[in-house]
């Protein structure tokens, strides 16, 4: 699967990091993780899950029928865990770089930054 991951994909993998979940649970968890900003609909969610299953990042753990409705539980595979981990590292590095720059700006460190060596 292409990286960097799109935000909904990243949030789906994040939601599955702690425990296997079914579609309905995933929709609620993704909404909670994003403070309600990312509201997945089932058509979109299952399209994303298909791509994740094809890429080997997610697989089906078990199925059960509740109130006559089929529920499949999805879990993160080792490859999914590795992808989520490397994406998290990448985002963390970006956040740290941005935070450092903003701190410099706030403290008034305005010395010009040299892109190359001195001539």
């Amino acid at each position, binding site marked *: 699967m292409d990286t960097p991951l799109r935000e909904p994909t990243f949030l789906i993998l994040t939601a599955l990091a702690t425990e296997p979940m079914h579609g*309905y649970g995933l929709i609620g968890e993704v909404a909670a993780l994003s403070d309600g900003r990312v509201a997945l609909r*089932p058509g*979109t969610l299952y*399209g994303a899950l298909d791509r994740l299953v094809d890429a080997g990042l997610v*697989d089906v753990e078990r199925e059960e029928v509740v109130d006559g*409705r089929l*529920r*499949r539980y999805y879990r993160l595979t080792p490859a999914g865990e590795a992808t989520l981990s490397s994406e998290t590292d990448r985002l963390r590095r970006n956040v740290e770089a941005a935070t450092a720059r903003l701190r410099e700006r706030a403290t008034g460190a305005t010395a010009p930054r040299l892109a190359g060596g001195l001539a």
Partner: protein
Amino acid sequence: MSDLERRYLRLLRAYPADYRRSRGAEIVGTYLDLAGPGQRWPSPADAADLLRGGLRQRLRAAGAADLLPGVRLAAVLAFLTATSLAAAWSLLELRPPADLTLPAARPFVSLGIGAWIAWLLAAVVYALAPGRWARRAVALAVLLTLGLVPAAPLVGLPRPPLFVLLPQIALGLVALGLPDALPAPLRAAPPVAVGVVALAGTNLHLLSPERFGGTYYIWTAVPVLPVAAVALLAVAVLLAAGLAVRADHRGIWAALILLTPVGLLALQPLAGAMDGARTSVAVWSELAATAVVIGVVGPALLPLALAIRRRPTRSPNLTPR
């Protein structure tokens, strides 16, 4: 089975049959879990979500998951071409014939000015609010362009010729696939192109007020469309080749989609070539016959390419491990 479940199952027909068998119960179950108490009908947003998901799965099954990104790329290129042409035609419209006995919708050349202004406004909407509003503005511009054909005889005023209107409508239909989010330089491109054309109209030799105005049938106006056809085709082919190097096939789909508007833009030389006489301005019957051929063959290329590329439908592996 409740009415709501039955209605969701009906919408689920948007998906391929194989996919419905493996995933249908789960998708509908999730919709029912999310449904509010007493809800009897799927919301319009749910219906759109299912139709979009079904289309995506059908394209995936046809081995053309990259078709939708191709549609969006084609839409951006088509919109840029359509707004640039609208700017050029607006210049022409602002220069009615000096001979007052010639037919004109004074102070303009024809009724076309109404449609061209709608296209220029669509460029502004696209820069400020891409997505739904931009698509609505494009749809309005297409309808106004189309509406010129019945409006002209009703009010007894001239309109731009069909060989000008047809490619504009074809470009507009492709532009309806404009994406929701785009980087700022791409959003600014159509208004910038309009500005460049406006400047060219005052300085560029062939678009200067002395040569470009009065009528759509002057020798400086007729080649505008084939030039636009060559430019659009060249950009589409170069983009397709560049993206294909990175194993990204959306450029190829975009080029295929754009072949119909490109063919209609090149209607004059293509029609001229058909009779072997290679006249620069083809006669009406040649133009009509060529337009019909382009209108049939061009759109048929896409399903043909999909059929050639089709692979056996593969459902995701949903077996618990």
